[in-house]
């Protein structure tokens, strides 16, 4: 990606975001240590960290076709699982020692079913995440996490004590804190980091050893301190959406002059805006509460739309956002309706909103440019 950030830490982040395997991950594997892949940001990474495993958030980065996964999925399925599963069938995920899936959406949840039939990964589990955010659902997910803890202990021969889980929560919270600091820098008139660059940093956080990521992120923050980015943008934008892990997509928007200053996306702020409650005596319950209720939710969580739009409004206000883009992967029934409701709500607020459909692998760049240019013109016309 094009960047003016000359730091070594950022270079490592960009490299990790640009592919599946990266040097940090390779070193980890060479040390004989385990890696567990997971789909969806509602799978608690903390349990893997506590088990001494590297949690790797599954992507389809670098995929160019779905020639193998097409035998399992259909053309009306989201291109994200089709590409990610294709990568797996091509052997690019052979480094995984385990995989944990979840019922995040109708497309991604079927990866589990196809994976266990087509691939030989030694440890594959599926979790049941409730769709509501109440106490009974927290109870349910607490039990799910306890079941997963038992499965991890049995398969990997580790003891997942409360103490180890607490330490993992603390580590993840420190990382969340650093990531939030990075975001807060973007409130500035001349943010020291762009939206595309930020996304690369965030994606890298799901693909390398956590301790190492924390060190590198600390380094990057120090380097960005006091740095002034370009003022040469036409509008400050916010991105809403789900599975967006490709900085190039944001790069195209930013090349048109729309600077992404914040987001609510599942590789973005929703990962870290709030920490896990460290004061909760039972760390498993703390995790369940966090993943079911406390973190900013995605549309699959029923009844939470008022909180989601409140979060969007709060972010838009804090980051002085002039326009919001709701991006959605084609065939996603969750985000299409969410964007519909968001559009109505933002219309009442007088905040311009653009809903964009996309494929997982970057395509239709010309069309994207045109739509962004038109949106920016609309924003500029408002300013008069």
């Amino acid at each position, binding site marked *: 990606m094009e960047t003016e950030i000359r730091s070594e830490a950022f270079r490592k982040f960009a490299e990790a975001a640009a592919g599946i395997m990266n040097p940090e991950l390779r070193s980890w594997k060479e040390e004989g240590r385990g890696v567990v892949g997971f789909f969806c940001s509602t799978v608690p990474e903390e349990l893997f960290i506590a088990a001494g495993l590297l949690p790797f958030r599954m992507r389809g980065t670098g995929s160019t076709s779905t020639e193998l996964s097409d035998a399992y999925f*259909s053309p009306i399925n989201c291109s994200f699982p089709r590409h990610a599963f294709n990568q797996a069938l091509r052997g690019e995920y052979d480094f995984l020692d385990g995989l944990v899936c979840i019922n995040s959406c109708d497309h991604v949840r079927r990866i589990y079913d196809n994976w266990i*039939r087509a691939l030989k990964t030694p440890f594959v589990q599926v979790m049941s995440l409730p*769709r509501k955010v109440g106490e009974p659902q927290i109870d349910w997910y607490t039990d799910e996490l306890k079941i997963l803890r038992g499965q991890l202990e049995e398969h990997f021969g580790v003891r997942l004590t409360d103490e180890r889980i607490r330490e993992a929560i603390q580590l993840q919270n420190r990382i969340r804190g650093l990531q939030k600091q990075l975001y807060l820098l973007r409130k500035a008139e001349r943010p020291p980091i762009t939206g595309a660059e930020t996304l690369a940093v965030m994606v890298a956080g799901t693909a390398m050893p956590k301790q190492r990521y924390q060190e590198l992120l600390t380094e990057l923050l120090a380097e960005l301190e006091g740095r002034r980015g370009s003022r040469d943008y036409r509008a400050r934008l916010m991105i809403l959406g789900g599975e967006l892990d490709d900085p190039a997509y944001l790069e195209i928007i930013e090349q048109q002059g729309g600077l992404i200053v914040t987001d609510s996306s599942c590789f973005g702020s929703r990962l870290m805006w709030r920490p896990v409650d460290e004061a909760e005596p039972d760390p498993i319950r703390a995790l369940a509460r966090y993943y079911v209720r406390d973190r900013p939710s995605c549309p699959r969580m029923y009844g939470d739309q008022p909180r989601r739009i409140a979060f969007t409004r709060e972010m838009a206000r804090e980051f002085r956002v002039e326009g919001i883009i709701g991006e959605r992967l084609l065939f996603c*029934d969750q985000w299409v309706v969410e964007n519909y409701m968001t559009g109505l709500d933002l219309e009442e607020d007088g905040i311009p909103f653009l809903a964009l459909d996309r494929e997982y692998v970057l395509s239709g760049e010309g069309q994207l440019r045109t739509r962004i240019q038109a949106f920016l013109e609309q924003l500029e016309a408002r300013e008069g």
Partner: protein
Amino acid sequence: MDRDAVKGKSLARYKQERDWFSLLYQATKLLPGEEGRLQEKLLTILLDSKEKVVDCVENEKPFVAGYFCNAPELFHAMDLPWYMLMETPFLAASAPYLLSDIEGAESMGIGTDLCTAIRLPIYYIENGLMPVPTAVLGLLYPCDGAPMLHQVIEHNKAWKNVPIYCCDPPYTSDERAVEYFADELRRMADFLQQHTGKTLDMEKLVKVCEESNRSYALWQEYNELRRSVPCPHGWALGGPQAFAISQCFVAGDPRCTSWFQQLLRCGELRIREGKGASEKEGWKERIRLFWFDIMPYGWIFELMPWLEDEWGAVIVMDMFANFPYTLIDTSSEKTIFHDLAKRNLLDAPMIRQARGTAQNFSSDIRRIVKDYRIDCVIWPGHMGHKDGAATVGIMRETCRELAVPFLHIGLDLFDRRYASPPEVRDKVSQYFSGMGLG
């Protein structure tokens, strides 16, 4: 649109549907034979349920808008009339305006790849075409569309203050899941009592459950008849009506049991007489189909009769027709809620297959193919069934193991523009020919 405006507009549409069925009811009276009486009885029950809702809206009596597979025995036992949130596109009465409604939904900016069965109710709610109930009962599966539909309800201004409770079926299917879902149903019953002024009388619930047990037992007995060669009934009678009458319009109602008794008699008689699905002269059952999904209700008459007439292809079983329903143990409140949870979580169509892992897609195909001497399995591939679309490889592999041909069509149950009836017929013809069927 405010609540009063919605009341008038939605009632007008609802009455239009009722009147259409009323006309149909008059027509069925002219149909000959036992099958005609079955259709007549079904329409009587349907009309009665519609009349009750009209009465509730007009006279401000409590009623609910429900979803499918959320234990209607509970609200039936509370004497709460209901309509199903997504019933309209499935009813033949919607035919005159179905396409314009779909276009209306498109013009709202809801993506055309969103399941039409979800898109249409959203359109109806947002355009004041659905009666605003006293309370809403939702279900957060079998697909991603369900929670989104319910969130639109909460978001809509005319519906904003309508209390809503959505049961949250877990993804797993073990005893822990059943217990969790039973608790969800208990909370649903409490919610109904709180918001409708009705009470749940356990004695009444026992009676309703016992009645529903009788209905489901008869249904299962009838399904055994469909194993016969030739199958006594085709697409026009059996599963979908049985599902509608036991889950959508009434539940645990003696009229429903009586309908099943008549259905059973009817099937037995046809088998004794050696009759198959069609009475047409020279007609012969040549292909026994398992239609593993919902039928294309938006244009059903352009496909299903053709299958039987042109190819002698009989839908012996479909997704809504058969999984033996758990009979409720009515010995205690605990067993009732437990078994209602089990029935609605593990047995009821779509929730059973699409809610959890793909295991049931595979095991249902195995069971049905073997039990019903199926010649081929068709997965119609409704554009909204995304989880099923991601299961085609598993279904194909299962069929391959069973040495039974498998066809994935790819259509929209309601929108004929997605895959036109001639296109679908052509695809099916090529498939039958290619497989040497019929």
